[in-house]
Structure formats: structure tokens, C-alpha cells
């Protein structure tokens, strides 16, 4: 019990630290929020303008909701991904990595704290963007299965936690360029996961890669829930697959992370702050 309480205090250290970082770098938060908001609006306006672009009659409302679901879900999943993948990068930027790695805290606890913050932060941020974007477009979600959508989103979060851990390895391995490499990983996920278009639009070889991205299933399922009111029962196989695959990636990610941490300690790579 005592050990559990200690670990939970340790996990909360990362939640509190990240909230404090957010408060101290509030200017960045505002800029980032504006960037994300404008990005979501710009993408969604492509749907609104499609009738004029193509010169043919289209279901504009459907297109708007299709793109909006894609952009909002991507905003949420990428926040989870970046918050976790940056757990090492932040320590490098601030120069505190050695101090955190010397503390008697397991890497799993480190991850639990980072994930709790990431999910809370991702939900709040996405809701703020949704609230503002809703003022620009008429959204009709009357036939949507909202509880199914939330279930799917939580299942998708598990997978993105795993991917975030794998990406967090990069700044540990490459002190100077690891953080930039995580951007490339996120960009590839954006391309292949059907965020703004159906995966079937991609060339065959990219569709094969897309089948390995959890975001593909989350976004597809979310659209089925929000646009077509897909019942929760039908979503369960996807939810279970996402949780199972996510848990698998977390276990594998943590195992790789520990090996890479041992390598960084052998090679003296914790010291450089990049």
C-alpha cells in the first residue's frame, strides 16, 4: 500500500509539473491553440467550398462534418502522441533529465503520470476547439451515437499512448534531433490514417501501411458513430482490437524504452541536453 501511494505521488509529480509548464508557457499555449483552431477551420472550409470548387451539387453538410470529425479527432490523438513523446524532449530542453532519471520512480509510473495529463489536456483542448468551430458551422449530430464515440476515443487513446512511448525513445537515442524525428512520425500517421479522406483514396502500398495505424480505425469508427449513428454493439470488435493492440504496443514500447535507457546510460547519452 505504502509503495502504491509513493508511486501515485510520483505519477502526480508529472501531472502537476505539466500543468505548471502550461501556466508558465501560456503564450505558447495560446499560439498553439490558435494554430490548431485555424487549421481545423481551414480544413473544414474545404468541405464548405467543395460545391463551388467542383461546380456540382454535393451534400456539403456531410462533407463539413466528415472533415470536422477528422480534424478534431486528429487534434486529440496528436495531443496524446506529442505529450507522451515529448516526456523526454521536455527534460532535455530544461536540462532536468538526469535529475528525473535518478529519482526512485519506475518508468511505468512516469508514463502513467504523463498519460493522465495528456488525456485531460487533450480532452479540454479539443472541447475548446469544438466549441469555437461549432460557431462557424451548423453541426447536426442529432443521429450520432455519442457514447459509442467516446468509448472509441478512449480505446484509441490507449493505442496512441503506446505510439507515444515508441516515439519518446527517439529523443533518448538522438539528443540533438530526436524531437524533430517525432514530428516526422506524426506526419506519416496523418498521411496514412484517413484523417481528411478515405484510406481507399491512397495507393495500395500506403493502404497496407494504413492498416497498421490505430488512427485509421479510430477515425473510421468515429465517422460511423457521428455521421451514421453506428450502434455501440457493432463498434465493440474495433474497441477491443484497439485496446488489445494498444496494450500490446505499450508493453512492447516500455520494454524497448527500458533497453534504450540502459543503452543511453552505457553510452553516456543522458548528459547532453541537445
Amino acid at each position, binding site marked *: 500500500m505504502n509503495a502504491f*501511494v*509513493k*508511486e501515485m*505521488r*510520483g505519477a*502526480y*509529480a508529472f501531472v*502537476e*509539473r505539466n500543468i*505548471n*509548464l502550461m501556466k*508558465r*508557457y501560456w503564450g505558447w499555449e495560446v499560439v498553439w491553440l490558435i494554430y490548431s483552431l485555424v487549421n481545423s477551420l481551414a480544413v473544414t472550409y474545404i468541405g464548405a467550398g467543395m460545391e463551388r470548387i467542383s461546380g456540382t451539387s454535393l451534400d456539403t453538410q456531410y462533407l463539413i462534418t466528415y472533415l470536422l470529425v477528422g480534424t478534431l479527432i486528429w487534434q486529440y490523438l496528436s495531443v496524446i502522441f506529442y505529450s507522451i513523446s515529448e516526456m523526454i524532449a521536455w527534460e532535455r530542453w*530544461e*536540462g*532536468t533529465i*538526469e*535529475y*528525473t*532519471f*535518478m*529519482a*526512485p*520512480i*519506475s518508468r511505468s509510473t512516469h508514463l502513467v503520470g504523463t498519460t493522465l495529463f495528456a488525456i485531460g489536456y487533450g480532452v479540454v483542448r479539443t472541447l475548446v476547439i469544438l466549441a469555437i468551430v461549432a460557431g462557424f458551422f451548423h453541426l447536426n449530430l442529432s443521429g450520432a451515437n455519442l457514447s459509442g464515440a467516446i468509448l472509441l476515443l478512449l480505446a484509441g487513446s490507449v493505442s496512441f499512448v503506446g505510439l507515444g512511448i515508441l516515439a519518446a525513445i527517439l529523443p533518448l537515442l538522438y539528443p540533438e534531433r530526436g524531437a524533430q524525428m517525432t514530428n516526422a512520425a506524426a506526419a506519416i500517421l496523418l498521411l496514412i490514417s484517413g484523417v481528411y479522406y478515405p484510406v481507399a483514396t491512397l495507393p495500395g502500398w500506403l493502404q497496407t501501411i494504413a492498416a497498421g495505424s490505430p488512427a485509421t480505425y479510430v477515425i473510421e469508427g468515429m465517422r460511423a458513430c457521428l455521421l451514421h449513428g453506428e450502434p455501440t454493439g457493432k463498434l465493440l470488435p474495433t474497441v477491443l482490437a484497439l485496446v488489445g493492440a494498444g496494450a500490446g504496443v505499450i508493453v512492447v514500447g516500455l520494454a524497448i524504452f527500458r533497453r534504450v535507457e*540502459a543503452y543511453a*546510460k*552505457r*553510452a*553516456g547519452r*543522458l*548528459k547532453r541536453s541537445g
Partner: protein
Amino acid sequence: MTTPAVQVQDVRKVFVKRERRRSAFSRGKRSQAIALDGVTFSVDRGEVFGILGPNGSGKSTLIRLLSTLLLPDSGSIHVFGHDATRDEFAVKQLINRVSVDAAFFKKFSPLENLSYAARLYGMPIGPARQRMREIMLRLGLKEETFTSPMEHMSRGMQQKVAVARGFLTSPVLLLLDEPTTGLDPHSKLDVQAFVREIRSDHDATVLLTTHDMEEADRLCDRIAIIDSGRIIALDVPERLKEGVRKRNGHEPTLEDVFLELTGKRIAEAEKEG
């Protein structure tokens, strides 16, 4: 026989460096830097053990190995009987470290940084906050600085917060890597007095690296002199000095000991490092 606080046995650590690439298609040449070469010593419980040496002599590598931030290439390190490689978690619970570079979240206040440290070490936050204030006041920091960002503080004040963070968790082994570098003489004395207090009141063992010969003489029960990754002398300060002949009629100092053993003065050796 009691277990020594620290047992370092034949430790070797080599860093591989890759030189800058000449072109995008060529790989940089690899070179090796021997940081520690067969280092062996032990520290008794409750002892203040000093490690003297110039920059690049291997002092900080040794501290990092004891802090579990590096793994040795060969040899073994035990802290209160726990293997620092295989039983890393147990070692982490016993130690804390103050390094020469005060590593903090610079936009956080001292209290926010120390709260983060307290939570990482599983301390209940209420009593921890009380202890933070006591230690910082004891080290001469003013109450009004507790909540202002670290980036607005002088190097010396930041170093005092680093010292407070090291003491906060009441470690049984305190690793001090040049803790008074950058401090004014008065602050240095504050920290040195606090080290003595920690040792006597909390039965802590202290491993101290320093360039400051007077500090080493004043605080350490035994001193190891390290140069180019090797321990070249280890004894109590008096006996180290006894082994050196008088120069210019004055009693030998640790600086003279260093000169005699390494053929260079500490300041010169630092420049080479």
C-alpha cells in the same frame, strides 16, 4: 563487519566519440576517451569522502555512475550492499545528488521545483513543503525568493536551491559534485556547515568532489586524488600532506600534495581539462 556505504571495485568507463562527418556520405572517425580506468575504493558509513581532481579527471563520471545515470563497462559499484547496476531502484532510494550545473525548470519557482522533487521521491507534500522552507532559510535564501522564477535568481542562489533539493529527501548517501562552485564565500560556509550538520544529525554519508582544496581539507575525513581516470592517492588529509616535503618553509597544503602527485597545479590542470 559492517557493509560499507560505497564499494567501488575496479571500475572502468570508456566513452566512444564520433568525430564530425566530413561529408554527408562519410561516417565520422570513432575515438575512445577513457574516463575511469580501474578505480577501486570504499567509503564507510557516516564518512565524508572527498574526490579531488582537475576537469576531465573522471570525478563527475564517478558521481554519475554512483547516481545510476551511467553504467560501468566493467567492475562493480555497491551502495550499502546494493549493486548499482542490477539493483538500481534500491540504490536510487538511498541517494541524492547536487551537481555543479543547477538543473531546474527555469520558469518554475524554487517551491515548484522542490515540490516536483518531493513528489518524485514519494514524499507527502505537506511536511515536504515545511521542510523545503526550513532548508532554504537555513541556507540563507530569503522567503520572498521562494515563489519567484528560478531564471530571475543568481547562479549562487540557484545553486543553493539545488543544495536544498539534494538535502530535501534526507538521503543516506549524498553525492555532492562541486556543490559550492559559483557560491560567494559566505554561502560556501553556509553549505559546508550544512553538510556537517547533515552528517552528524542524519548519519548521512557524503561523497564530495571539489576543486576547492580548503573545502576538502575542512570537510573530508579521507580524500582520493584522481587524475586521468585513475586514483593516484587515497588517505586522510593529514597523511596525504605528511608525504609531501615542505616547500618554501611552509607546511604542505593539499594543493602541494596535488602538485607533487600530478606534476601540475589544480588551476593549470583545470585549463588542460
